[in-house]
């Protein structure tokens, strides 16, 4: 694994338990009951899921997205399904774009992530409005922008365990 496909440094392989732990923490953050129509709280699960779908497209994909979507739906009060649907589509897009996105530096990766998050939100709004609920207002879409702005710090945070050297050597810091 590399930081991006252009970097020379080879990172440690990702540990599965770390992937699932980060998704679990993101799920708890999504359960935090703040007014999500204010648009200041990003969709943490969508963000972390996108990250791992791009980094580990062979292991994290639509199945994980589906299960996480169901859990997020249960935490809310709406019907079962909108988040599951949105995250499945998100995982599909992120998996499909993974090999391309990995060639860009993190800031340009964020530009790939923004449209994906927006599509996912539009999908959810569409489903909920077909069902007959009120439009949450345009500020709702701001959370995608907030999420995009968090992409760079999140990349460093989630790659921290992989940055560890294999065996520490005082004389040869990598």
């Amino acid at each position, binding site marked *: 694994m590399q930081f991006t496909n252009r970097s020379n440094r080879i990172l440690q392989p990702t540990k599965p338990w770390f992937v699932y732990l980060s998704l679990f923490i993101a799920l708890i953050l*999504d*359960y935090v*009951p703040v007014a999500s129509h204010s648009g200041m709280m990003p969709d943490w699960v969508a963000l972390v899921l996108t990250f791992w779908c791009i980094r580990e497209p062979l292991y994290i*994909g639509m199945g994980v997205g589906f299960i996480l979507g169901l859990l997020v739906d249960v*935490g809310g009060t709406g*019907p079962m*399904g*909108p988040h599951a*649907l949105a995250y499945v*589509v998100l995982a599909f897009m992120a998996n499909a774009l993974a090999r391309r996105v990995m060639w860009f530096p993190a800031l340009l990766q964020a530009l790939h992530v923004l449209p994906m998050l927006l599509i996912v939100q539009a999908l959810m709004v569409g489903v909920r409005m077909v069902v007959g609920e009120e439009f949450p207002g345009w500020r709702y879409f701001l959370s995608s922008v907030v999420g995009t702005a968090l992409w760079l710090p999140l990349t460093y945070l989630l790659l921290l365990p992989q940055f560890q050297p294999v065996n520490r050597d005082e004389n040869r810091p990598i």
Partner: protein
Amino acid sequence: MPSADFQTHPVFKRGVAPHVRLLVYVTICVAMLVADLRLGYLESLREYLTTITYPMRMVAAEPVNLASNAAKYFSNLADSQFEQADFERLRIGTADRLLRFTALEQENEQLRKLLGMSKRVRTYSVAAEVLYSAPDPYSRKLILDQGKQEGVEPGLAVIDADGLLGQITRVYPIQSEVTLITDHNQSVPVQVERNGQRGVMSGAGQGKLELRFVLADADIKTGDRLLTSGLDGLFVPGLPVAIVESIERDVGAFARIACRPLGGVEESSHVLILSRAELPPPPPKPETGEPPLPPPLATKRDPDED
């Protein structure tokens, strides 16, 4: 050139194509949406998942509770004492009315019996605390800390000290969900306090209410108080709901009436779940000439109920 029956063994296992998997998952999701919304098949799955995720949601709600309680926590002793004195004065002020209430209720019952009217329905109530408002941008809902174990049922009214807040729409074992009257999909049958004019109150989104299906020339004024009419058989009649704020009469057959909720719909932290303790109607009598079954419990316990 390889023959037709020549089979290559793939070096990498690839599984089902991603497009096919996407299609399968999307189909499952849409099926779930329909099953949940139209048929209501998934309630048990939801209950199960809600119970599993309960600790996670409680952990997540903690920082928000902390933030909202911080001001209360750091208020000083003098403020608390003033507040307590206020409550004490309020309690004394309402005491005489409360003391007379029991006597009046008995008197009312006797008078009704004399007049041959049916009994006024009794109520029972469960006090509850608001855990948090649901993090859902599409609807106005609260989560309460009382559930099925305390006898909460879907359909009950939820009030605070000033008026109606909403209705219980979903009940979990230890929690329940209130849809506020300001929610888009919530309606309450109401009547005007001044003259008994009836109408249907609906949520208009963004914390507002709208009184619908009242004729343009109806006798209604700004400042009129609206009470529940009890026609739905769920809410106790006479609960204050809203106050009329503005009326537009020349927009069609019906007037457009905007209202403001009287209860602290978005800010209450302690609420009361209120039920009409109505006994179930007696079962229909058998049509055959046989002697009727022993009278049902309900009629035995309460012979005056019609």
